[in-house]
């Protein structure tokens, strides 16, 4: 569905957020276009998870966040999901006591029963490995399969933008590749992706554009094709960039 060329799908400006008294993000600006995969990189503690949580409404924030032309100020996670913005949180946290199919049905909680089953079947078609285990409890799945299930949960509502928080964390290289194949397929299917990742090379291989976040603000924005990107990233992470400015 086309939106005006001027405004990106997700448009963030001057975003600040934190936990209680601790300010983590200071005036972040970032955008994701309708068919893009954007990677968000940065060292630990930079605020990447905080950023995703703020956008999806899990944390209070100040600043400006627009999604598909709509102002997200004060929206709850439930409403952001309804608006088409899905957030797969870090740590493949699925509901271990429920069956795989029930995990997916819950993701479609707000839909009518017919819609629910239809969407879940759609998602099963995308991920045969968990479709095979549909009746098993999620606790029986391996870490990688649980991560795929978590991503599948995010897709049940056919979001326009999917935010993934470190989908590779704690997974073996084989499973990491498996998960990232899914991300590539998403872009082909027309879903935009905002990907927070620790594995820089893999993220760069997938993404169209990349941002680097350090100490709560964006220190780098580039297209992935650019030549000196690896060095610039290293510099952004490890160097005392603020002092040399």
């Amino acid at each position, binding site marked *: 569905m086309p939106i005006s060329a001027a405004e990106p799908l997700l448009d963030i400006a001057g975003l600040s957020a934190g936990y209680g008294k601790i300010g983590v993000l200071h005036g972040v600006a970032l955008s994701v276009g309708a068919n893009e995969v954007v990677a968000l990189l940065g060292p630990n503690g930079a605020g990447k998870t905080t950023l995703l949580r703020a956008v999806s409404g*899990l944390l209070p924030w100040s600043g400006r966040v627009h999604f598909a032309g709509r102002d997200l100020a004060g929206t709850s996670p439930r409403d952001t999901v309804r608006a088409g913005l899905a957030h797969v949180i870090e740590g493949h946290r699925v509901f271990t006591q429920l069956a795989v199919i029930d995990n997916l049905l819950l993701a479609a909680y707000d839909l009518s029963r017919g819609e629910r089953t239809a969407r879940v079947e759609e998602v099963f078609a995308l991920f045969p490995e968990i479709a095979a285990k549909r009746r098993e409890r999620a606790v029986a799945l391996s870490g990688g399969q649980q991560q795929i299930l978590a991503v599948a949960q995010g897709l049940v509502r056919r979001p326009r933008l999917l935010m993934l928080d470190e989908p590779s964390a704690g997974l073996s290289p084989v499973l990491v590749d498996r998960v990232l194949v899914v991300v590539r397929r998403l872009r082909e299917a027309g879903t935009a992706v905002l990907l927070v990742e620790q594995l820089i090379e893999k993220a760069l291989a997938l993404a169209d554009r990349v941002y680097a976040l350090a100490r709560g603000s964006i220190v780098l924005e580039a297209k992935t094709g650019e030549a000196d990107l690896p060095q610039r990233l290293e510099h952004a992470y490890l160097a005392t960039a603020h002092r040399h400015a």
Partner: protein
Amino acid sequence: MVESIVSTGLAIGCIYALIGITYNVMFSASRVFSFTAGMLGMLGGVLGALFIARLGIPLVVGFLLVLAAGAIFGVITEIVAVRPVLKSLDQHLYVLSTLALALMVQQFTAIEWGTEARPFPRLFDIARGGFDQQFWLPMLACIVVIAGLELLYRHTLVGHAFLAIAEDTFAARALGLPERSLRMASFALAGVIGALAGFAGGEMLLAFFGNAPLLTFYGFVPVALGGMGNNRGAVVAGLLLGLFQQTANFLVGGIFASVAVFTVFIIVLLARPEGLAGASAQRRV
């Protein structure tokens, strides 16, 4: 004699188990224990007597009204005593807020209904004796609740949503589940279960405001021994408690039976703070 001990013990054990389940349902939804569980049991008996015996409302309607009242008081608990303190820094305020609410309702009942135990109406017009309804009504209630909860949690979307909230509230929220409504619904359900316990056990416990503290304590023992949030453990522990209490009653008399129950409870709890079935929690810095 043995027959009497067993039937009374099991019946009262079922009431305790149901209050334990009330605690558990509230705990699953909010990670918090509420002093209002015993109060709900008391209300089941008092309101049942009020509606059916005093106001003459027909049995089925009165019963449904009691359940509705339970649901309402459950939701009041959530709104007034639980939701406001979940956000606060001091984690233990919920003990005090739910205690305050329970006391308010208990005292109001004492003033308006009276401080004496009043009889609870006989629900079915069958002659007394043998396996009397005052024994099998609580047992029936317990079975219905267990079966109903099993059905709810295993086979309905809402039940799954309750389990999701209980397991990982944050992930449930991120997924877009309506966390607040689900919590309120859980508390309403807990209210219904508590009121049902009091209603079914009305003939045994009588309509008495003093049932509140009694059920608060004896209804918690199944939770402590069976493990937090563990409904099956609560049922087993509740039945054992009921039988133990009636046996002790018979052997050493009412007062010392309470001492016996309390002593055993404390000893078991100190030995296994997480309950006989529970796993120990891992502390994190």
